[in-house]
């Protein structure tokens, strides 16, 4: 999380967004999500989750990530992002593929062979 996205909410009705900062914030969310999805994939593989369990684990990790982002944003989402969806779902589906790959990789190496 780099800089605050908004230049302060002067007028209450229309929030003023600084789009460059917003992009940078969204990018940092994306990076942390990607990183987390890879790490959680490896962890899930090593712990030997199979089937639905792994996806539940992924969702849990992503929820924890959202929570962490919320704390990091000091519970005022609209200071940093334009909507709640940003911290809730941004990058979740993009990370899923990486998660599956690293999950499979770690699982195979540890449990199959």
């Amino acid at each position, binding site marked *: 999380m780099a800089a605050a996205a908004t230049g302060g909410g002067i*007028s209450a009705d*229309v929030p003023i967004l600084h789009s460059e900062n917003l992009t940078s914030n969204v*990018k940092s969310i994306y990076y942390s999500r*990607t990183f987390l999805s*890879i790490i959680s994939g490896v962890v899930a593989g090593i712990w030997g989750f199979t089937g639905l369990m792994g996806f539940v684990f992924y969702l849990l990790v992503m929820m924890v990530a959202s929570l962490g982002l919320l704390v990091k944003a000091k519970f005022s989402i609209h200071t940093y992002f334009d909507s709640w969806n940003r911290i809730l779902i941004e990058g979740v589906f993009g990370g899923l*593929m990486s998660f*599956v*790959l690293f*999950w*499979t990789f770690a699982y195979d190496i540890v449990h199959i062979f």
Partner: protein
Amino acid sequence: MAEELVLDTAIRDWVLVPLSVVMVLIGVLRYFVAKLMRSPSASPSPDPKLVKEGQVVIRARNLRMNAQYIPAKAFKSRKVYYTNEENGLLHVPKEEAQKAQAAMFSDPNMAMDMMKKNLSMIVPQTLTFAWVNFFFSGFVAAKIPFPLTPRFRGMLQNGIDLSTVDVSYVSSRSWYFLNLFGLRGLFSLILGEENATDDAQKMMQMGGGFGGNPTMSLAAEKDSLDIIQHDWALPKMEHHAEEVLRKLLKK
């Protein structure tokens, strides 16, 4: 269905791990090759007219994006400055537009650049695919830890023609494909944002700025500036400023 296949550990050591490592390394290599190929073409000083047009487009875009932060009158006068039919910055005379288009098509440099970009994508992929096919075709390399319907057989067991093997076993060729898609996230982490896939998107976005067809983007920008609805976001700003100033005076 229920019987488990026993996979040789040699498969892990000589197929699964090497394949993944090679995929990562090739991704990194491709990134640097693309960078090398790109830099010489960007360095010669571009046509000043092109640069000028690109900058005009960027200015117009800035106006369009931040339109709600200036009063209606200010916006209108700026809009006229950009879009009026006589000497607006974004206005391109018809015959000139046609000429520019013709010039674009006859310009071999542009096509060359596109070719280069495409080649740097396609060649490594074909080579890797051929390599994987040659060395590792036709056996099970991995098992995905979740069950799938038989529909996925074609996708995951590419290269094995056995219908009795459980679908969650992945052939080596399909493991290559899995890597191809799944490693994108890893690349964006290790190579930074300027990775090959992002690059294409970025080119697309700022196509108006440099390269692409500047006259075309001028016209497009003019259209979007024409249809924009102006909606001032700060009607209370003066009031607010007055308050602040009064507060300051009182002190």
